[in-house]
C-alpha cells in the first residue's frame, strides 16, 4: 500500500456497508475502521432502506450491486426517492459499461470496482469531497 493511510476519526464521518457477501462485509468494515470511519453493515438493499427508515443516516454508503431481496440498483433508486442525500458509491465486480451506466443512473455519486482497497476507498472519499488531502 503506497503512501500514508489518513486518519479521518476527527471528521466523524459515518458509513454504511451494503453487501451480502460475508467476506466483503468483513473487509469493507475493516477498511473503513482503518480510516477511522465509524460504520455499520447490512446484507442487502432492503436492509439498507430499512435502516434509513429507522432514522439512521450516513455520510457514505458503499453499495454492492448484486444482492438478494433488493439489489444495489433498486436500493439506490429507493434511497434517492426517499430523499436520502448521502454519498453513495457503487462497489461491484461487475464492470460492463451498460451495467455500470445503469447503476450510476440509479443515483450513485461514484463507482469503484472490487476488490476494495485502502487506495480505492481514499479515492472514493476524495472524489466525493469527504476527504481533502493536505
Amino acid at each position, binding site marked *: 500500500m503506497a503512501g500514508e493511510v489518513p486518519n479521518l476519526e476527527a471528521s466523524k464521518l459515518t458509513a454504511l456497508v451494503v453487501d451480502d*457477501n460475508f467476506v466483503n462485509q468483513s473487509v469493507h468494515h475493516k477498511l473503513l475502521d482503518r480510516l477511522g470511519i465509524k460504520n455499520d453493515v447490512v446484507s442487502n438493499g432492503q436492509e439498507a432502506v430499512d435502516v434509513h427508515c429507522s432514522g439512521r443516516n450516513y455520510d457514505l454508503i458503499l453499495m454492492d450491486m448484486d444482492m438478494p431481496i433488493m439489489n444495489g440498483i433498486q436500493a439506490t433508486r429507493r434511497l434517492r426517492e426517499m430523499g436520502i442525500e448521502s454519498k453513495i458509491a457503487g462497489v461491484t465486480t461487475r464492470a460492463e459499461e451498460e451495467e455500470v451506466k445503469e447503476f450510476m443512473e440509479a443515483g450513485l455519486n461514484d463507482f469503484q470496482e472490487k476488490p476494495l482497497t485502502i487506495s480505492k476507498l481514499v479515492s472514493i472519499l476524495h472524489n466525493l469531497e469527504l476527504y481533502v488531502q493536505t
Partner: protein
Amino acid sequence: MQRQVALIKQSLFDQGYLDEQFMELEELQDDVNPNFVEEVATLYFKDSARLINSIDQALERGSFDFNRLDNYMHQFKGSSSSIGASKVKTECTMFREYCRVGNAEGCLMTFQQVKKEHATLRKKLEHYFQASQ
C-alpha cells in the same frame, strides 16, 4: 522463524496462489485485530465451502441452470477476489465463461479445477497461518 514465514508467503505469491489483495488485507492487521487475515480467510473458506456444496448439488442433479450456477460462481469469484485468491479466481472466471455459452461439459471440468485450487489454497494458507503463530 520469521524468515521461514516470509519464505512461505513469498512462494504463495510466486506460485500465483495469492495476489496483491492479500497484502492489502495484511496491511489492515493491527493491535486490535492481530489475526484479521486469518479470520477473513476462515470466513472465506466457510462461505466458499457452502457455495461449492450448492454448485455440487446442482450439478449432481444434472440440472444445468446456467443462470443459477453463474450466480453461485459470481459470489465465489467475488469472495476469492476480496481475499486475493488468484488461482481460484481464475478458475471461477473460466467456469462463468462456460456458463455464459451454456457449455455443461466445460462447467463440469472447470468446477473440478475450482475445487482443486480451492483445496490447495486452503492447505497452503493453513500451513502459513500455523507457521505465523
